[in-house]
C-alpha cells in the first residue's frame, strides 16, 4: 500500500477514518505492514473537516484498491504545447484561478512553489538596461496554467542569456519595451522571489525543447491567456459558458483524445466494483476469441458437407461448400486441404499446391496436407519431366521427399530423374574427356587455349539449343537492346562467332590443334583482357545463375554427388561476387556465352584444369539452355543435341527475365573486352603480333577495363 497516500488521506480525515480502516482491512496484509507508521499521522489531523461517515466507510472498504500501488495506471503523455495541437482537439480553458478569485498572496505563493527550471514563461518587456531586460510575466506557456498577470511578477533576462544574432551588434538593440517575449526559466529564488529567464533553447526542459524562444506576436500568445483576458473582463462569463463555446468541446472524439492525454486506457478501464476488476475476466470470454472459434466450427461444417459432395462425385457443389467455408474462415486448414485435393483431382496442380502450402503455413504438422502436397508435387514433377524441365522437376521431387520420405512414387521419380541427369552429364564428360586425352604437358597458354575451346563448345551447344527457341524471343531480345553500339558489337561478335563456329565445329570433329592455332591468338588476347574482369563478370554470371537456380524451385543443389563440391565452390565464389557486383548498372544484353565461359574458365585457371573444365562443361551444358541467345542468327544443327538441351529451351522462356538481367551485366564487361578484341581482330593482321607487344596491349587493356569496371560497380 502506498504509505504516503494513506498518510495524506488520514491527515485529511482524522482518527475516525483510521478506526474504520483498521476495522475493514484487518485481513489485508499490506495494510498491516503500514498501520504502525500511520498511527502518528492521525495526530497531525486537522479534525476541522466535516467528515462524512459514509465516505469514510467507503474509503475504508475500498482502501485495498484505492491505495494499491498498481492502481496508478495512468500514463500521461509528454507535456505538449497547447498551441501545437492542431485545430483544437479539446477545449483549452483559461486557468481556474481567473474564476476562483483567489487572494493574491496565495497565488503568489503557489507560483513560486510550482514554477520550475525549464518552464516557459511569457512576459512583456518593461525595462531595458545595459545588462539585460526586465519582463513583466503575463502567463506560462507549455503546460502550467496560472493567472499571474496582475501579480506584477518581474523576471530578469541577462544579456548573456540572449543569443546574439551577430557578433558585432548589441543583442539588446533587437528588443524594445512592450515586446512580448517567450523565455525559459533559468533560475528561481523562492525566498527573494526573483526569477531569471533565458532565451537559450538549451535551458528548456526536454519535453519543451522544441518551442521557440524569443519575441512573439500578440497572436502567438497562449490561447488560455487570451481567453482568460476576455473572461476576466466580462464577469458574466462562467467556466461552463466558455467551455460550451469552445470549438474543441464539440469534437466528437474529444473523450478518446483526452483519455489518451491523461493516459487512461478505455479497453481495460479502472473500476471500483469488486466484480469488474480486470483480473476476473478471461481472454476466451471476449468477443473476438469466441468469434474465431465459432468461425472455425462453422467452416468445418461446410467442409464436411463439401467432402460428402466430393465423395459422391458432385465436384461443383463440393467446391461451393469449400469456398463458402473459406469465406467464413479464411485460414481454415481443413477447408484449404480439401479444396486443394479437389483442385489436384481436377488437374489444377498449381492451385492445389498453393492451397496446400497455405494450409501448411497455418498448421505445419497437418498430416493430410503434407501427404497430398507430396503427391501433388510428384505429379507436377512428372509433368515437368515430360516437358524436359528436369532440373525443376528434380527440385520438386526433392521437396516432396522432404515432406514425406516414405512415399514410394516420390522416391522412384527422384531416382529416375537423377539417373537421367547423371546420364546426360556423363555423356558430356565423355566428350570432354576425349579432348583432354590430348593434353599431356601444357603450357599455360595452351591451357588457356583449351579452356577457350571448351567455352566455345559450350557456347555452341547452347546456341544450338537456343536456335530452337522461338523467333519471337529472338526478335524481342534483339529489339530490347537499347543502343546501337551494342548491336554493332553484337554483329561484330556474331561475325567473330561465326568464324569461330566453324572452328568449333571442326574442333568437335576432333581437329582440335588446327582450330586452336587459328584462333588461338584472338582467344588468348580476349582471354587476357577478360582476366581482370573475369572475376567480376563471373560473379555476376554466377550470381544471376544462382538466382535463377534458386528461383527454379530450389533445384540448384548438386545434381549428383561428385559434382556437389565443384558446384559448391563455384557457388561460394558466386555468392561473394553477387554481393559485390550486384549493382552493375549497364544492363545491356549480351548473348555471349563465349565470353562468359571464357571468363569462367580464365578465373578458375588456378583450379585444377580437368575438374574445372568438366565442371564447367557440365554446368554450362546444363544451365546453358537457360541462357538466351538474342541474336542467334547462326543456324545450329541441333541433331546432335541431346534432349536435355531442347528440353531446357522451354526453361529459357520461363526464365527470360533472369537471363536478360544476367546477360546485361555480363555484357558490360564483355562489351569492353569485345571492343578491344574486335578492334584487334578486325585489324586482321594482328594475329602474329610479337609477344612483348601483346603483353603491353594486355596490360593496357586490363588497366582500362579495371578503370572502366570500377565506377560501374
Amino acid at each position: 500500500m502506498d504509505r504516503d497516500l494513506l498518510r495524506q488521506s488520514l491527515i485529511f480525515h482524522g482518527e475516525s477514518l483510521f478506526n474504520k480502516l483498521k476495522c475493514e482491512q484487518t485481513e489485508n496484509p499490506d495494510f498491516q505492514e503500514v498501520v504502525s507508521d500511520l498511527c502518528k499521522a492521525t495526530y497531525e489531523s486537522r479534525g476541522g473537516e466535516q467528515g462524512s461517515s459514509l465516505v469514510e466507510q467507503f474509503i475504508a472498504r475500498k482502501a485495498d484498491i484505492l491505495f494499491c500501488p498498481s492502481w496508478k495506471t495512468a500514463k500521461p503523455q509528454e507535456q505538449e504545447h497547447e498551441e501545437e495541437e492542431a485545430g483544437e482537439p479539446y477545449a483549452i480553458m483559461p486557468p481556474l484561478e481567473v474564476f476562483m478569485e483567489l487572494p493574491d498572496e496565495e497565488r503568489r505563493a503557489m507560483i513560486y512553489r510550482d514554477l520550475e527550471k525549464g518552464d516557459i514563461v511569457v512576459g512583456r518587456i518593461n525595462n531595458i538596461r545595459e545588462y539585460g531586460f526586465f519582463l513583466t510575466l503575463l502567463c506560462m506557456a507549455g503546460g502550467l496554467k496560472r493567472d499571474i498577470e496582475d501579480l506584477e511578477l518581474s523576471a530578469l533576462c541577462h544579456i548573456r542569456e540572449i543569443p546574439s544574432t551577430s557578433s558585432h551588434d548589441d543583442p539588446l538593440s533587437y528588443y524594445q519595451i512592450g515586446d512580448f517575449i517567450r523565455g525559459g526559466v533559468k533560475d528561481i529564488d523562492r525566498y527573494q522571489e526573483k526569477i531569471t529567464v533565458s532565451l537559450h533553447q538549451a535551458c528548456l526542459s526536454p519535453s519543451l525543447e522544441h518551442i521557440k524562444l524569443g519575441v512573439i506576436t500578440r497572436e502567438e500568445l497562449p490561447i488560455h491567456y487570451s481567453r482568460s483576458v476576455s473572461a476576466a473582463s466580462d464577469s458574466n462569463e462562467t467556466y461552463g459558458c466558455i467551455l460550451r463555446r469552445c470549438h474543441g468541446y464539440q469534437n466528437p472524439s474529444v473523450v478518446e483524445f483526452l483519455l489518451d492525454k491523461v493516459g487512461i486506457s478505455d479497453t481495460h478501464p479502472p473500476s471500483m466494483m469488486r466484480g469488474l476488476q480486470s483480473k476476473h475476466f478471461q481472454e476466451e470470454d471476449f468477443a473476438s476469441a469466441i468469434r474465431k472459434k465459432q468461425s472455425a466450427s462453422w467452416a468445418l461444417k461446410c467442409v464436411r458437407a463439401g467432402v460428402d459432395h466430393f465423395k459422391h462425385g458432385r465436384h461443383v457443389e463440393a467446391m461451393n461448400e469449400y469456398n463458402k467455408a473459406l469465406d467464413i474462415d479464411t485460414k481454415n486448414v481443413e477447408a484449404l486441404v480439401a479444396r486443394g485435393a479437389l483442385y489436384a483431382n481436377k488437374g489444377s496442380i498449381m492451385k492445389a499446391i498453393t492451397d496446400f502450402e497455405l494450409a501448411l503455413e497455418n498448421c505445419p504438422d497437418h498430416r493430410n496436407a503434407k501427404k497430398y502436397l507430396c503427391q501433388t508435387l510428384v505429379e507436377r514433377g512428372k509433368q515437368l519431366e515430360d516437358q524436359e524441365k528436369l532440373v525443376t522437376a528434380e527440385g520438386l521431387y526433392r521437396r516432396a521427399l522432404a515432406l514425406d520420405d516414405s512415399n514410394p512414387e516420390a522416391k522412384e521419380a527422384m531416382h529416375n530423374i537423377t539417373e537421367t541427369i547423371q546420364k546426360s552429364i556423363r555423356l558430356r564428360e565423355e566428350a570432354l574427356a576425349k579432348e583432354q586425352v590430348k593434353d599431356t604437358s601444357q603450357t599455360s597458354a595452351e591451357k588457356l587455349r583449351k579452356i577457350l575451346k571448351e567455352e566455345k563448345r559450350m557456347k555452341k551447344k547452347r546456341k544450338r539449343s537456343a536456335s530452337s527457341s522461338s523467333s519471337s524471343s529472338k526478335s524481342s531480345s534483339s529489339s530490347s537492346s537499347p543502343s546501337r553500339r551494342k548491336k554493332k558489337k553484337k554483329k561484330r561478335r556474331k561475325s567473330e562467332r561465326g568464324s569461330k563456329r566453324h572452328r568449333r565445329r571442326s574442333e568437335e570433329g576432333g581437329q582440335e590443334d588446327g582450330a586452336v592455332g587459328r584462333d588461338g591468338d584472338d582467344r588468348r588476347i580476349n582471354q587476357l583482357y577478360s582476366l581482370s574482369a573475369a572475376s567480376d563478370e563471373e560473379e555476376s554470371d554466377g550470381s544471376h545463375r544462382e538466382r535463377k537456380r534458386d528461383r527454379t524451385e530450389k533445384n540448384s543443389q548438386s545434381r549428383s554427388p561428385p559434382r556437389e563440391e565443384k558446384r559448391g565452390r563455384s557457388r561460394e565464389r558466386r555468392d561473394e561476387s553477387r554481393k559485390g557486383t550486384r549493382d552493375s548498372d549497364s544492363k545491356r544484353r549480351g548473348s555471349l556465352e563465349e565470353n562468359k565461359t571464357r571468363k569462367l574458365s580464365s578465373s578458375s585457371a588456378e583450379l585444377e584444369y580437368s575438374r574445372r573444365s568438366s565442371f564447367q562443361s557440365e554446368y554450362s551444358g546444363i544451365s546453358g539452355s537457360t541462357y538466351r541467345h538474342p541474336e542467334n542468327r547462326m543456324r545450329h544443327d541441333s541433331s546432335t543435341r541431346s534432349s536435355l538441351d531442347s528440353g531446357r529451351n522451354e526453361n529459357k522462356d520461363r526464365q527470360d527475365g533472369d537471363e536478360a538481367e544476367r546477360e546485361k551485366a555480363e555484357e558490360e564487361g564483355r562489351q569492353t573486352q569485345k571492343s578491344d578484341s574486335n578492334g584487334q581482330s578486325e585489324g586482321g593482321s594482328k594475329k602474329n603480333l610479337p609477344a612483348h607487344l601483346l603483353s603491353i596491349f594486355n596490360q593496357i587493356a586490363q588497366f582500362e577495363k579495371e578503370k572502366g569496371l570500377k565506377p560501374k560497380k
Partner: protein
Amino acid sequence: MEGPSCLSPAGRDGETRAADRREPGGGSGTDPTRDTRTQFRVCRFIMETGLKLGLRSVPVATACVLYHRFFQRASVRVYEPYLVAMSCLYLAGKVEEQHIRTRDIINVSHRYFNKGSAPLECDKEFWDLRDSVVQCELLVLRQLDFHVSFEHPHKYLLHYLLSLKSLVNRHAWSRTPVVETSWALLRDCYHGDMCIRHTPQHVAIATLYLALNSYGVELPVGEKTWWQVLCEDVTKADIDAVISDLLRLYDMEAKCI
C-alpha cells in the same frame, strides 16, 4: 406501450430461459428491492459484456442510460431485461458510432450465461436469438420516442480534470491517482438509475469530489470553491446526494453478487 408478441412471457427464447436460471429463485424482500437488484445485475451484465465486446466508456454509458430509461416506464415483468440489455448495447453501438455485430453480442451473452460453453452453431436457435435482439431494438427505440442521444459526464469530467491539474503542484498530482479513481467512480455510476436522475455536470463534479476527498487532496479556496467555479449551479447538497447514491451502489454489489 405493448411490445411485439415474441417478447410476451409465452414466447421466451432459449437465452431468456437461461437468464431465468441465473437469477436466484424466489427473491426475498419486497418487489422494489428485487427489481432494484435485478436492475443492478442487468447493468452489471451490460458493463461486463460491453468490456468484452471492446466498447468504449461512452457507448457503455449510453447503453445503460437506454436501459434505465426504458424501464422507467416499462415493467421488468413484462419485458425480459437481459434481452432489452442486449438490444441496448446494440443500439448504443450504433448511436455512439462504435458498431458491434449482433453475432458478437449473442456469442458473449451466451457465454456469460453458460460458462465455458462451446460457441453457438449457425442454426435456427442462433437466428431466432438474432431476430429477437433486432426486434427488441426497435421496441426500445419506440419506447424512448427515438430520443437516444444523451449528454454524458465523461467529457465534463475530463475537462475538469485538466483544469484542476494546472491548479496543483505537478508532482503532487502525478503522485495521486485522482484521474483513475474519478474515472472508475464515473463508470460505476451506471449500475443504477442515478445516472439519469442527476445532470451530467453534477455527476462529474461529484465523482471528482469523491476522488479528491478519498486521497485528502487540498485545493486552494478563494471566493469560490473549485466546484462552484466548474459548474455554477451545483451545490454541496447536490454533490452529497450524488455521492450517497453512488455509495449505495457499492453496498448493493456486496448484497447482489
